């Protein structure tokens, strides 16, 4: 079974620039999550999708972050404009059911460095 695919693997941008990350979940997984992981901390949920609808985006900084999941499969997360404190690993995960009863499957993440 193919895992959760994310790209790019690494990205370096200057502050105030924009950046986008892409995620392709495991086939058949209706629920998709984006997490932000700052160095030395555990992942923090940014947004949760069920198919192409948003379940929870309460922790997404909406003034600069946006995410979409067109057609209920692939998803993109965008930051515009980026700040230094956005430097982190952005993880995408998917699960078979909405509650994650059997755990989430994570991708390897995109490491973003804002300089």
């Amino acid at each position, binding site marked *: 079974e193919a895992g*959760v695919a994310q790209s790019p693997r690494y990205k370096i941008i200057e502050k105030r620039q924009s950046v986008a990350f892409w995620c392709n979940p495991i086939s058949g997984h209706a*629920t998709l*999550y984006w*997490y932000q992981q700052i160095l*030395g*901390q*555990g*992942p*923090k*949920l940014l947004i*949760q999708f*069920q198919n192409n609808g948003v*379940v*929870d985006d*309460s*922790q997404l900084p909406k003034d600069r972050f946006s995410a979409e999941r067109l057609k209920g499969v692939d998803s993109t997360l965008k930051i515009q404009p980026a700040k230094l404190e956005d430097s982190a690993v952005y*993880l995408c*995960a998917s699960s078979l059911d*909405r*509650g*994650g*009863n*059997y*755990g*989430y*499957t*994570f*991708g*390897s*993440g995109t*490491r973003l460095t804002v300089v």
Partner: protein
Amino acid sequence: LAKTTQPISMDSYEGQEVNITCSHNNIATNDYITWYQQFPSQGPRFIIQGYKTKVTNEVASLFIPADRKSSTLSLPRVSLSDTAVYYCLVGDATSGSARQLTFGSGTQLTVLP
């Protein structure tokens, strides 16, 4: 949301059994306990999930006492490749909201030769 407390770090030697305990005093009736493992430059990987008593799979065992206020992840005969960060999550896995399952800072397990 249930708060969890884990040791920041643990050291062990190859071949030993490792037990990592997680404290969750305010666990709710509908909450499950889930453990993840994370290697450097990778996303977390689901290890095991349980509600009460004992759960075992091919990777680990999870022990949950009757009061459910703590849980212990047991890794039998660890090897160098088990060096990783281990996260304990407590939340209602049936709620449909991932915000119920919050990652803490985890336990850095270092396995020494």
